């Protein structure tokens, strides 16, 4: 029951919030924080129980789940409400709890319909936790689709800029992806000896083992669906727009949690259920990963907008994950230990990217709340008026590029170590991606923090948080005017009139909370690795069958 409580608590709270119409905004915001905190506390309790228990038998994926629950839902096609926790899902559940708590604290001052906003995020939290905990394909799909619906309304209702178009683009891309996923699920269902949608049963008795063509097609359908969500090149084009126009907390959740649904789907569904096809097509996955690494890095380098830059680095980071997962399928080229390290690295990267990119997007939100723009050209010299902001941005940026001592290093180091044996050329190419990201983050830090102080005046350009609902054309025109103003270099304020407020208590709590978790993982990775490694070993042995 504990796991179901963890999953359902947010949505129950959301319904309660919607029902209590008379609550003042501050109470609503604090209730939201309280619910997110309780949910996280329950997850931490689950973690403690999971880590202390001595489990025998399989370590996840095909059995040995903790907090397992199974209730028959549609017996005719063997669909059930089947949830459980193993070493793959637990870290991601914990990361989801952390990020949603951060989003709740961050949104304490939300003025724009705070009740609906909180309810929507709580609903999204249930959907995300449910996807990570699901052990049934259809249950996975249900939660997976609900995240799309919730995120659509977050972007469309609380975003800025061209938010409606971005929200629609997000919805259509990911919805197409999810249908491809559904077709793949039906393929798995029909291909099995015993017709079932249960992931555990399917992983125990992989379907389509004697028909490589069908297995390849099903893997293609699954991969397209998951690649849109991840996103991998060339399915990533929805990501920058959705991120740029989403509110800061929404961006953090989108990058931190929702992108992981895609990569998690590869580990949880594609690899153990279609091991033969995964082996056969592993090199394609590796190449897709490397292309995403490079494409994400170089495109990020070219961005002039901080949020778009971070969005493209997500494509880059997701590429590393796919490199690790693909390398785990190259059974002929690498021993099981190397492949296990690659999978472990990929799992750590999912957690690490959630924490660091979540923090980066919140920092971008700080810029927007102060000056209404993310453009690098409008900001400068922020280290002097806002040292705390500068420190946080520095830690997050260095963490994201893989500096030792932070979580991303643990992740990327393991991915490269594990993948080098299996795919040496691809790994060497992918490592150059790190150099590019290092360059782009340093350039970003330089633009934002060094030099004369430059702060956009709230009166010009896209001002304030108020989205231009009624007249997008006017907004675009004024944007253009603001751009020309900056390019003519009349706008070089080095005087004291440029004011930039440093991080407030609410912002410090969230951003430093995320960053300190990343540092803890970077310095003391053992507890996390202890949870992940057995399940990762299970995955690589299943794929290697």
């Amino acid at each position, binding site marked *: 029951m504990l796991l179901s409580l963890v999953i359902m608590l947010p949505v129950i709270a959301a319904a309660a919030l919607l029902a209590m119409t008379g609550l003042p905004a501050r109470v609503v915001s604090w209730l939201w924080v309280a619910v997110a905190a309780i949910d996280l506390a329950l997850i931490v309790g689950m973690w403690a129980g999971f880590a202390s228990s001595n489990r025998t038998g399989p370590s996840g994926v095909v059995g040995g789940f903790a907090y397992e629950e199974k209730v028959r839902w549609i017996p005719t096609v063997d669909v059930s409400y089947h949830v459980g926790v193993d070493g793959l899902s637990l870290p991601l559940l914990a990361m989801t709890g952390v990020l949603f708590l951060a989003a709740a604290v961050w949104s304490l001052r939300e003025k724009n319909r705070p009740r609906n906003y909180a309810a929507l995020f709580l609903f999204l939290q249930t959907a995300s936790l449910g996807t990570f905990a699901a052990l049934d394909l259809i249950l996975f799909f249900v939660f997976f689709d609900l995240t799309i619906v919730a995120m659509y309304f977050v972007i469309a209702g609380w975003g800025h800029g061209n938010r409606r178009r971005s929200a629609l683009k997000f919805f259509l891309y990911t919805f197409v992806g999810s249908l491809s996923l559904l077709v793949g699920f*039906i393929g798995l269902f029909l291909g099995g000896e015993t017709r079932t949608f249960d992931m555990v049963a399917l992983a125990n008795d992989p379907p389509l083992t004697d028909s490589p063509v069908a297995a390849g097609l099903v893997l293609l359908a699954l991969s397209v669906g998951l690649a849109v969500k991840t996103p991998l090149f060339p399915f990533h084009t929805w990501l920058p727009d959705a991120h740029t126009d989403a509110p800061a907390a929404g961006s953090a959740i989108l990058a931190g949690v929702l992108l992981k649904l895609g990569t998690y789907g590869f580990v949880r569904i594609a690899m153990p259920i279609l091991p033969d096809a995964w082996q056969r097509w592993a090199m394609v996955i590796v190449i897709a990963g490397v292309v995403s690494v490079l494409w994400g890095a170089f495109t990020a380098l070219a961005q002039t907008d901080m949020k778009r830059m971070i969005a493209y680095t997500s494509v880059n980071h997701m590429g590393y994950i796919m490199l690790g997962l693909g390398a785990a399928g190259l059974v002929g080229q690498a021993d099981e230990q190397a492949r296990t390290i690659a999978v472990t690295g990929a799992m750590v990267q999912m957690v690490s990217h959630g924490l660091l990119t979540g923090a980066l997007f919140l920092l971008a939100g700080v810029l927007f709340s102060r000056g209404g723009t993310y453009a690098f050209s409008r900001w400068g010299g922020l280290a002097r008026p806002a040292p705390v902001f500068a420190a946080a941005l520095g830690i997050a940026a260095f963490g994201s590029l893989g500096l030792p001592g932070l979580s991303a290093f643990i992740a990327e180091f393991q991915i490269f170590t594990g993948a080098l044996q299996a795919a040496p050329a691809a790994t060497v190419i992918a490592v150059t991606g790190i150099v590019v990201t290092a360059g782009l983050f340093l350039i970003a830090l330089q633009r934002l923090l060094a030099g004369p102080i430059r702060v956009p005046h709230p009166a010009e350009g896209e001002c304030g948080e108020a989205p231009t609902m009624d007249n997008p054309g006017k907004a675009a025109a004024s944007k253009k005017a603001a751009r020309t103003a900056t390019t003519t270099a009349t706008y070089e304020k080095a005087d004291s009139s440029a004011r930039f407020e440093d991080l407030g208590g609410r912002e410090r709590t969230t951003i430093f909370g995320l960053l300190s978790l990343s540092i803890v993982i970077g310095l003391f990775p053992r507890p996390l690795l202890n949870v992940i490694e057995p399940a990762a070993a299970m995955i690589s042995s299943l794929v290697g069958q």
Partner: protein
Amino acid sequence: MTGMEGMSANPLDLLPEILLLFGAVGGLLLGLWTPQQKQGRVRSLIVTAALASAVVSALRLSDPDSGVFEDSWMIDTTTSVVRILVALATAAAILASSTSLAGHPRETEAYVLMVLAALGAIALTASQDLLMLAAAYLLASVPLYALAGFAKDARGVEAALKYYLMGAFVGVLMLVGIVALILAAGSGNYRALAGILPQAPMPVVAIGVIGVLAGVAFKAGAVPVHFWVPDVGAGTTPAMAAFITTIPKLGAVAAAFRLVSEPFAQLPLNVPLLVAVIAALSMTLGNLAAFQQTEVLRLLAYSTVSQVGYMFMVVAVAGQSDYALPALTVYLAGYAVTNIGAFAAAAALPKAFTLAQWSHEAGRRPWLVLSLAVLLLGLVGTPPTAVFVGKLAIFAATADGNFVWLVVLGAVNTVASLFYYLRWIAPAARTVFATHRQPAGTSISDVLFHRTPAATVHAAAAASVLLGAGSGLWLAVTT
């Protein structure tokens, strides 16, 4: 007990139909002796009769299959499910239309015609004999011609005329088909046809199959005999349109399912492929036509055409997949609930004809918009609604019956349908957000708003989610 030995002629086997008929006849008589303002009692009587009919059918769900009255009337899972759904949907449609009909000079007549058409829909499903099918076709059609033109305005008359002419034409085709089949087989009974038709001369059988399928496709509103759907959908009141686009469809799809799985199952002709093509065309053309609609009712009408496409997917694999029958029962139930709810959303704001007007007038009613979003996303097939489960089951059954291309096409069409449903949801949600921001918006009182249909919208949205979550229960009970 199989039908052959159980040649029962016990009138009580038809108790659900008798109850509906009692509602129709009793309602007509009661209406004659009731003053104009108090016709609400006719409504109560008919709704009670419909609910009683549904309860009786539900209690008999576990009875063994039996063909009664010389094996011309089949009582099995399909019939029972359609009996329950049609009775409940009729009750809901009558309640939803009560606001627009109350005090109307021909109020009683409208209700009676609706119940008779519902009886026709059940008869279509239960027919186990071609002649019975012909009679059911007429019973399901003639009351609807009158209902389509009920308002007696220009659009209603045009709709009724179009519907009638098309119905008469297809009816003749269907009769020719029935004659051809009986000529070829010497019997109209489905069981007999299933045995004899494979050996009969194929050209005659082909004419028969095409004619009979044209008839049921017309009642279902499938391409290429769908042209009446948008006109009738937009020519009547929304509640009536909900009835006309839901109830006959349930009966017709189930009838097609029975035909393909029994008399047409063993033919050397590729009947499943023909049905699959009808399904593909219906969903694709219905979607394409829905893209450019600006009127709420026309959009919904075309959406029903595309929905028929999904239902015919499962007809194509009737008898070829074990999952076909469960898929049919879930989808019919989900479709009935969701479609009536969506039309009720149009009925709640009767003065809002276009999508823009509807969104504008719904601006102050966030709950109505929320329920509408649940229903329309349900029609797309978003989990965890009933249509999602139905669609999942249909896709699985169709892939199992080796129509993978049809599944892919169905998935593509599902994505495409999202565009036009979002064209309704998005502006409505936007107005809700906008009016929240500026509390001093348009006054709520100058908008004509009906409470009963709005309640139907909320009930349907809740039922859609509950039926999705409880679909296992529904399947366990029905199959």
